[in-house]
């Protein structure tokens, strides 16, 4: 309480001090002129003072303590025309400038560095280390399986790997998918996947902005060891009705936006797969399966200082499988799972210097499995998360920005399973309380130093108290070169139990599992090349302590927590479910990226080396995890064909009514490690079994490397502009070379002869679809 009073006094004193000087301040929001959407990450700059800022998650910016006078204001954002205006700063006053940026339909092949644009190197400088920003348009242009997918798009970036074609899970810098925090409009999403991981839950048509931090994230984020994916959905068009509809071989979807009176807007999206209603009706072997998801988001700007935003998401997968359709008396099982999230955010500008977002969020994941009358086996998995949090920014001076916040999270996790001879009944309630403070200091225009501290209290059957320091520094070495560094300590209290078929089960640190800990060290180099190319190199080292791997032989170590009246065991704890160990990842990532012009995209290379050491695995010797890939090359390109040809001829580029776009995604990755069966042996199938079976005994853990992985995807889009609407049919071909990338190896013996075959990943997969906007 004492410290809170001091903080309030300090803030009040600074407010008084601000206006007692011959300074003013500049603040406001930046919007998309076409639809009124607040824009995130816009570079705002006063060239005369070499001072800048960028808009935050609410589209708000402030440049405090600007000496009174006349200046130029420049706002620059990818895909929009640069905004330039003359402004006057009055002493002791805040100058509020609401900026509306117009969409730039054709961006030139080269960007001329003139006074009214922000250099690429400065944009890179403003970006936090290891952070990647992508727009929905960029995501949708990367050729994928069936349709655009956020998580699959992120897998094309250096440092982010998939484990196979069949999974959208992200392995970031050697970390595992459970070490990634997925935020949807500020709300945690626990199992962000549809179709057993083939697709993610995020509908790309509903996305406004995404930020992915691959490590070294600041004190406002925590709870995971590896990465933060922050997805922000469309607020809604506050100018006019706007719609988008798409149909692909996977799903049909639509996104609608419209104004809500003068001061608000609403957007909504709906997506559903439909092959259960088409193909599955004709072919009995295809199970009755579908998924759907939907978003609704609305905001109401009460006044220039207060804004309320509400966002909801819901999605579900439903599978009803019959084992044998030909049988007269059929049997099968049902499985359904999905997420629901909701958040209400209050955005408050207390004064030009003090900006805040307060949230109440709720997230719920549930899954239900029922084997029906086949066998009395049922499974219920439930995760509930109610969170209250606040993030505040105090812009004390051009040199000092302070961010602080709090979070209280109430978790409820239940897992119930019934089976013959026992049951599982886990019911856990946990609370976490978090506070953070972060100071950003810019002693000169070329230095940016940030130090922060995050305190976490996590209470389950055992209490945990942790303090996590964070540090980062940026330095503009020259006009075109930036150097960056970051380090930090990260704690995680959630642990994942992977399941073969159903969605993963989450559990938390308790008396059996401690909190996991990671320490990151990152060094970065950025260079602007030929005015519009971004070249980045980052080296990282991550150290893990107390990370957990699911114990595949857990069943031999379970101990019942209580018994049913008939003596059958009831398992109520996580004892024996995990192996505990340590590890480290190190690597280097390089990327050259171009975001403007008729040819956009990136070329990336990453080298990564991850090693684990678990007492109970591989005889305690170090081993590489299954997702470890040493070298990966990614190339993503998007070519506006007509304008690219014009550029080659030296002609002026312009926007055509009909536009052909070629998309390309190439990946090469060195082989993954895998544990092979070192040998086979014969043994009876059980006590008194009349015959022997051939079984396999594994060799050294992950000692064998699979062949390299390589794939080329292509897409061809044709976008036709009509008076009030557009149509964009597309053809995508996943793995156009039909390369047989090995997923794993299958071993068998046929009449005594060895029969070794490979189980491959996706073959060539062509798909078509069409998008409409109106």
């Amino acid at each position: 309480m004492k410290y809170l009073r001091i903080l309030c006094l300090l803030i009040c004193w600074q407010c008084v001090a601000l206006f007692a000087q011959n300074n003013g301040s500049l603040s406001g929001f930046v919007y998309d002129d076409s639809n009124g959407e607040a824009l995130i990450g816009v570079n705002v700059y006063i060239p005369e003072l070499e001072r800048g800022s960028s808009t935050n998650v609410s589209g708000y910016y402030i440049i405090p303590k600007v000496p009174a006078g006349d200046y130029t204001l420049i706002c620059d954002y990818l895909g929009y025309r640069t905004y330039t205006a003359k402004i006057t700063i009055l002493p002791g006053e805040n100058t509020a400038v609401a900026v509306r940026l117009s969409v730039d339909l054709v961006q030139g092949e080269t960007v001329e560095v003139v006074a009214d644009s922000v250099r690429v190197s400065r944009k890179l400088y403003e970006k936090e280390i290891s952070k990647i920003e992508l727009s929905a348009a960029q995501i949708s242009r990367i050729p994928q399986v069936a349709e655009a997918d956020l998580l699959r798009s992120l897998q094309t970036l250096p440092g982010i790997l998939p484990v196979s074609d069949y999974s959208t899970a992200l392995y970031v810098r050697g970390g595992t998918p459970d070490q990634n925090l997925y935020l949807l409009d500020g709300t945690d999403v626990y199992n962000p996947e549809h179709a057993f991981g083939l697709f993610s839950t995020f509908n790309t048509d509903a996305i406004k902005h995404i930020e992915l931090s691959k490590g070294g994230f600041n004190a406002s984020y925590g709870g995971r060891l590896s990465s933060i994916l922050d997805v922000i959905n469309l607020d809604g068009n506050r100018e006019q009705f706007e719609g988008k509809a798409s149909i692909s071989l996977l799903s049909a979807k639509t996104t609608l936006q419209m104004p809500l009176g003068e001061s608000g807007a609403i957007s909504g999206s709906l997506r559903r797969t439909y092959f259960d209603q088409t193909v599955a009706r004709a072919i009995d072997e295809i199970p009755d399966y579908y998924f759907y998801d939907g978003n609704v988001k609305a905001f109401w700007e009460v006044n220039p200082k207060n804004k309320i935003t509400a966002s909801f998401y819901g999605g579900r997968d439903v599978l009803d499988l019959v084992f044998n359709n030909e049988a007269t008396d059929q049997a099968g099982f049902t499985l359904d799972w999905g997420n629901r999230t909701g958040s209400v955010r209050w955005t408050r500008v207390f004064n030009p210097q003090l900006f805040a977002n307060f949230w109440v969020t709720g997230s719920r994941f549930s899954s239900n499995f029922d084997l029906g009358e086949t066998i009395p086996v049922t499974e219920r998995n439930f995760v509930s998360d109610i969170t209250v949090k606040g993030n505040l920014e105090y812009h004390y001076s051009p040199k000092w920005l302070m961010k602080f916040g709090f979070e209280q999270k109430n978790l409820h996790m239940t897992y119930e399973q019934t089976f013959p001879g026992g049951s599982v009944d886990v019911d856990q309630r946990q609370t976490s309380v978090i506070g953070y403070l972060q100071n950003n200091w810019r002693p000169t225009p070329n230095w940016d130093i940030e130090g922060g501290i995050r305190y976490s209290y996590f209470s389950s059957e055992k209490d945990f108290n942790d303090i996590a320091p964070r540090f980062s520094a940026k330095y503009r070495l020259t006009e075109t070169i930036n150097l960056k560094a970051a380090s930090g300590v990260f704690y995680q209290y959630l642990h994942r139990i992977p399941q073969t078929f159903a969605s993963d089960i989450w559990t938390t640190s308790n008396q059996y599992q401690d909190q996991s800990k990671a320490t990151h060290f990152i060094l970065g180099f950025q260079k602007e090349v030929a005015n519009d190319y971004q070249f980045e190199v980052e080296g990282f080292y991550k150290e893990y302590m107390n990370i957990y791997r699911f114990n595949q032989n857990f069943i031999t170590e379970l101990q019942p927590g209580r018994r049913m009246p008939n003596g059958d065991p009831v398992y109520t704890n996580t004892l024996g479910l995990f192996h505990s160990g340590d590890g480290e990842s190190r690597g280097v990532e390089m990327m050259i990226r171009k975001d403007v012009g008729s040819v956009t995209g990136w070329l990336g290379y990453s080298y990564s080396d991850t090693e684990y050491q678990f007492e109970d695995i591989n005889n305690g010797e170090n081993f590489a995890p299954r997702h470890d890939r040493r070298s990966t090359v990614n190339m993503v390109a998007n070519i506006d064909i007509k304008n690219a040809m014009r550029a080659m001829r030296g002609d002026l580029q312009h926007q055509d009514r009909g536009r052909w776009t070629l998309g390309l995604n190439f990946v090469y990755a060195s082989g993954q490690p895998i544990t092979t069966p070192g040998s086979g042996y014969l043994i009876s199938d059980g006590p008194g079994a009349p015959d022997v079976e051939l079984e396999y005994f594994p060799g050294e853990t992950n000692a064998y490397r699979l062949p390299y992985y390589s794939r080329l995807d292509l897409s061809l889009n044709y976008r036709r502009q009509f008076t009030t609407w557009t149509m964009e049919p597309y053809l995508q071909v996943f793995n156009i070379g039909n390369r047989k990338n090995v997923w794993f190896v299958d071993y068998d013996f046929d009449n005594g002869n060895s029969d070794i075959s490979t189980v491959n990943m996706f073959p060539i997969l062509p798909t078509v679809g069409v998008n409409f906007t109106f």
Partner: protein
Amino acid sequence: MKRIYLLFATLAILLQACGEGVINVDDIEYQPKISIEGFLIPGQPVDNIKILRNFPVDANLNRLDLTLPTASVVITDLQDNSEHVMTYDPDRYTFYDAANSLAVQPQGSYRLDVSATIDGQSLSAHAETTVPSSGLDIVSVNYPSLQYRERDTNNNILNFKFDFQRSPGTTAYIMTAVATEAGESSFIYDNPFEEVEAEDVVDDLEDWRYESEWIQDLPAEAGVSSIELFWFDFWFYSEYQVVLFAVDKNYIDFYRTYEEVQEIDGNYHPPVFNIEGDGIGVFGSAVADTIMVNVTR
């Protein structure tokens, strides 16, 4: 020149993105192991200790002799430290107690020592088991005979449920069912799982006729528990010999893990064998009780 570079880069990418990944089996390291399967049951002779060698995953089993007839196989009774040398039976390819000197007792502890030479390497392994105590007894079964997928008046499928007296100190039980009249004519073709041809039944007859269920972590003290055999455990209209085993930790650990070594992503992990040294498999023990049930059309 720039276009030529572009053309070469495109060709390189296209070539790289074609073809297939090739597995080189020679890179998979083979380590010789002694495969052990020993199961002691009080009141039964020790006549079925299987000692074999393991083999490389690319072996030709028609040319490779898996037996180890010269292996040294000794079981030590840890009550009196008496050693019992097992003899190789070339007809059954198993080792047995030719002197019939080893009488397996409930709650008795036994140690198996095996040594053999495989591919020129001298290997040895050992394991210990403690036999569950006596007292296991199948008290009753709810139906001596059931039709396949027979339903009660509420349309619920009926299953065989066996009440049994537990073996004190033992928490894990395995129940096996072996069809005594298995054949292609008695096979249940109209099952809800898969379409099976008669020739497949003949080819895999031993697989089809043997099924098992298990339960674990029952109370260690004496008392009555239940175990079920489900309708899907039966593939023949037949009489079934049902054996309930109270098994030691070695056997239940092996039984629950030896087949489940491949994960969904194809990766392998080791099972729990409780054998020290160069051995794989199981050396366990059990007490047993038997009952007959019938599955009718």
